């Protein structure tokens, strides 16, 4: 392996070595500081007992994992409905026919209202309010109405993202489709929309990661999902470790998903430039 480097290669190799040394050095320094200094803090023993208690962790983790199944299930039935409603609203906002203007107005009003409200407020209002009208079982279930609240809020965001995708497709694509004699709706369906949706996949993935976390808000109206289960354990054991356990479970799902969304986003940026 005795190859001679060009002057540029030699310079770059030196630069790289220097950068690596610095990165490793500073990372180690920060880690050492964290590991050594934090336990020196006067409250560390108490914090460790109530937040990082191995015994409590082992006792509660299976129960938390079990409760997390409910989070995943709520996410699983909400996500496709959010995608469908978001798409429908995005298309409604694009309606040009004056006779259907009320639909367009409705879509605008809808996105404005639901993007302007805190999720938890919508969950309370819909989750308790609509069943309070006197619906019979099982139609008054908090699962149904809580999910609807999530769907309404998130579909408003998804609709806006899809609409921005539609607007990002070059106008001449629509012209080209129309010039072939396609109807405006066919031009949208076969030409504009497929491109728009591809472009907004990463942005929508970020929304769905946020949704995965907000599913926990449904616990406020009754369902015992992971956040509530952690709260119950906390009350029973007077210890916060179950919350740490719940956080770990969330991160196991959301960190890979976030990384993947970033990867898609980067790939798209590269493809476009």
């Amino acid at each position, binding site marked *: 392996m005795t190859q001679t480097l060009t002057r540029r290669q030699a310079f770059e190799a030196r630069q790289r070595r220097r950068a690596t040394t610095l990165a490793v050095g500073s990372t180690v320094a920060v880690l050492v500081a964290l590991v050594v200094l934090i336990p020196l803090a006067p409250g560390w023993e108490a914090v460790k007992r109530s937040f990082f208690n191995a015994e409590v962790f082992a006792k509660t983790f299976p129960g938390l994992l079990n409760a997390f199944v409910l989070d995943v299930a709520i996410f699983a039935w909400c996500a496709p409905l959010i995608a469908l409603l978001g798409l429908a609203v995005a298309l409604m906002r694009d309606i040009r026919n004056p006779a259907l203007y009320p639909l367009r107005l409705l879509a605008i009003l809808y996105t404005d209202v639901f993007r302007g409200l805190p999720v938890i407020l919508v969950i309370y209002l819909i989750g308790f309010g609509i069943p309070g009208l006197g619906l019979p079982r099982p139609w008054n279930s908090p699962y149904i109405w809580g999910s609807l609240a999530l769907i309404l809020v998130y579909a408003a965001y998804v609709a806006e993202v899809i609409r921005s995708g539609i607007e990002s497709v*070059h106008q*001449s694509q629509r012209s*080209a489709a129309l*010039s*072939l*004699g396609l109807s405006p709706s066919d031009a949208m369906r076969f030409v504009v929309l497929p491109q728009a949706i591809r472009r907004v996949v990463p942005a929508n993935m970020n929304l769905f990661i946020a949704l995965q976390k907000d599913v926990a808000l449904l616990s406020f109206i009754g369902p015992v999902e992971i956040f509530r289960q952690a709260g119950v354990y906390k009350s029973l054991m007077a210890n916060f470790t179950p919350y740490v356990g719940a956080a770990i479970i969330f991160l196991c799902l959301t960190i890979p998903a976030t990384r993947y969304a970033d990867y898609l986003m980067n790939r798209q940026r590269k493809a476009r430039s």
Partner: protein
Amino acid sequence: MVLRLENIQKSFGSNVVLDGIDLEIGKGQMVCLIGASGSGKSTLLRCMNLLEPIDDGAIWLDGQDISEPGLDPQPVRRRIGMVFQSFNLFPHMTAAENVMLAPRRTKGLSRDALNAPVSALFERFGLADRMDHYPDQLSGGQQQRVAIVRALAMEPEVMLFDEITSALDPELVGEVLDVLRALRMQGMTMVLATHEMGFARELADLVCFLDNGRILEAGTPSQIFETPEQDRTKSFLSRVL
């Protein structure tokens, strides 16, 4: 007359883009629109395909007034094909899917039924091995040729070309012009907005010089290129030739 334009008026806001265009295009004729950018060539083509509504005047296609406000533009567009300067092809579809989409949706033909005629079209324009490629796998010249094939698949009576070689690298211009030449020989009625003066000179039946939304001068290639009458025509030609 296949296509007759009568006193076409078109403004965008206070900006008058077309100011009284009169033009007759006979069957099998090739008409070239020349002129500086902003002279109204592209807008005129878009108006002829009903992508832009005209403010006043009339457009007659085979004796039918297609500029009637409120008229359904789709059947008309099926009879008038159009190719644009760029962003023609749908990037999420293969070349063959690009070509088949409109016949499938407007004529209700199945992919199977379309396979043979579409393959023949690709074959005819030297693109047989590119049918299953996506647009970004094709060169600019190939993309424009596929765009032409796509318009032809609708079997139009008239074809409009809006500076279809302007965005191409110079070495790719020739293959696209060859396609136009072939169409000309087959008797297709064509209207081109173009900067390829040599091409216009060689093949056009009628050359129109547009200036500020008017046809300032029209005539045979030799009239326009060799003995232009208007000063503005002369100065434009001296700049581009």
